[in-house]
């Protein structure tokens, strides 16, 4: 076979292979840029969908603590952040880490910061594990 033919075949093969791979590459890119991802809703996983029991410790006029119990073991190791609000006043104790087996977390509230009212809002966010 003449050398020029060999070169021509070789180049033709490269062109074919490159074209083929380009198609594959384009298909691969489509999945990441098409509306397939944008159209979907991915739920953020949670460590528990059951209740965490929240009880206040109060004096005659102030909330002095929170007890968060029934935290399941699946939330063990999570960082827990709590905010309590009564009326216009709120307080956020420092975050804590839930024990490996779950259980109970207690939060101290400085007396005088949160007065007792008819309704209190306690927001809890557990991040992780």
């Amino acid at each position: 076979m003449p050398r020029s033919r060999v070169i021509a075949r070789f180049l033709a093969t490269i062109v074919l292979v490159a074209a083929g791979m380009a198609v594959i590459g384009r298909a691969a890119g489509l999945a990441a840029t098409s509306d397939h991802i944008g159209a979907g809703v991915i739920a953020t996983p949670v460590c528990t969908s059951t209740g965490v029991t929240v009880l206040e410790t109060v004096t005659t006029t102030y909330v002095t603590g929170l007890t968060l119990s029934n935290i399941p073991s699946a939330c063990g190791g999570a960082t827990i952040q709590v905010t309590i609000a009564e009326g216009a006043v709120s307080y956020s104790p420092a975050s804590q880490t839930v024990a490996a087996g779950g259980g109970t977390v207690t939060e101290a509230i400085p007396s005088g910061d949160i007065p007792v009212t008819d309704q209190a809002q306690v927001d809890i966010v557990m991040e992780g594990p």
Partner: protein
Amino acid sequence: MKLRYGLVFVAAALVTIPTASAASLSIASQHLTPVRTCVLSGYPSTETIEPDSYVSQGAAGTNYGTQTYLYAQTGNGANMRPYLSFALPTCTPAIPSTATVTSAVLRLYAYTVATTCRTYDVFRVGVGGTTYWPASLTWTAAAIDWTNQPAGTTINNPPAAEATASENVGTGCTTGIAAAGYASWSVTSDVQAFVNGTDTNDGWMIRDATEGNATTYHTYFRSENDNSATQDPQLVITYVDVP
């Protein structure tokens, strides 16, 4: 020549593998668990947030809406039943109707417990339809008495099987409370129905699981009129509202 062709294919394949992997891209996230709790309390005393009273078989026409206690009693012709409710819209921010209530606990402080262990059942006012409750379910702390109470005057009715929850209170109880303290009933399904609007919030009635007992037994619970931050009735609602 064949070797060259082979090398070309291998090289081309290697170049495209990373791009092809992007098609199977997966999104992973650590857990992020938000929980919100609304604590409703009878303190400071406001009837609009937590109306309560009790009714007495022995004084059928008497209203006890201003008393500082809720009397629960079994006895021969001397039964007494507390009624109470909480205004859920008081929660700020409001609990969305789409929320999933993961826990709701009704708490009453028993400051004098029965001298023997008694079981107290809590009933959602309105459940059971016309079988156990009249068509009109409204009641007020200032007007309710034994004769006009939503549950009717037949003792042990509604039956215990209709109760939302039970709690043991009294001396000798091995579960529940045996001395002064908060008694708790899980009323999650009831509050879920109130939040979702599938049932009207007419509160709860509490009675001894066995009314008409030959020996009289009673427990005193604190009412909202007691105006005590540490002992007033509470409803603790925990919920989530995420897609």
